[in-house]
């Protein structure tokens, strides 16, 4: 195995996966090197198997849907639990603003 084979390896792999020619500096070497051609063929098979994986589905855990929907219920419960404190806070802020405005209003002597 030559140093050139090792340098060419990533480019051979890329070429096999992308279905393009090996980049120029290593092209002529790959054409004549049996080792690199074997690597190219192996990586082509690998790329085919990787692409085939897209269609393979693993079943999600049976309780995933329940867990997600339960969390959404929790979200709603939290937002509902915030309704009352938020209303009180808004009322308090409005009253405070009204007092400040009343105090700032110029009075007639």
């Amino acid at each position, binding site marked *: 195995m030559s140093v050139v084979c090792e340098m060419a390896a990533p480019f051979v*792999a890329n070429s096999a996966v992308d279905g393009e020619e090996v980049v120029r500096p290593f092209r002529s070497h790959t054409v004549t090197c049996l080792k690199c051609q074997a690597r190219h063929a*192996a990586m082509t098979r690998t790329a085919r198997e990787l*692409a085939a994986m*897209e269609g393979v589905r*693993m079943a999600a*855990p049976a309780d*995933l*849907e329940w867990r997600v*929907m339960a*969390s959404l219920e929790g979200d709603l419960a939290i937002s509902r639990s915030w309704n009352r404190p938020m209303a009180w806070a808004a009322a308090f802020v409005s009253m405070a603003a009204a007092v400040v405005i009343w105090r700032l209003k110029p009075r007639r002597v």
Partner: protein
Amino acid sequence: MGNPTDPGQVERNREQELIARAQKGDRSAFAVLLREHQDEVYTLARRLVGDPHMASDVSQEALIRAWRALPRFRGDARLSTWLYRITVNTAWTHKERARKHQGTSIDEHLDIAAPVDAGHPEVAGEILELRGRLRLALDRLPDPQREVVVLKDIYGWSHAEIAESMGISVTAAKVRLHRARARLAKDLEETA
């Protein structure tokens, strides 16, 4: 507007209707979408993080994030593509969190094999053997390298999409992929 009798178009219309309802807060519509896409989300999560328990947590969080972000989904991409992006980001966050708290553990996991239609039993055996070695080689890749291989070579994302979802430059994504493929090839060669 597509052909209304085309089964694919009918399916797309049905999904769009469910999305529109879910965007208005209809949880039963979201539950239907969830049922239809949870396997895809879980499969991607499992490939990205390896560990089945973490993949389950990633899927749960990704789907909750999807519900919260759904009002902002404009339908420019397919729902599955949009969900994939959320899953990638969620997986990334989970792994960062795991790295901070403990060393990540990647369990040995078994992929459900795609049906092998090779005609001859010996060829089918070779393919199954290659798939087994490939899964292990993918697991042995460092996380960032595995992510680019999964997204590019399995899901066919562009370099730009990978770069955007991982928060890196396109050049960095290309370099990472280049290294990952070389490592994968070497690993497979050594275990052949």
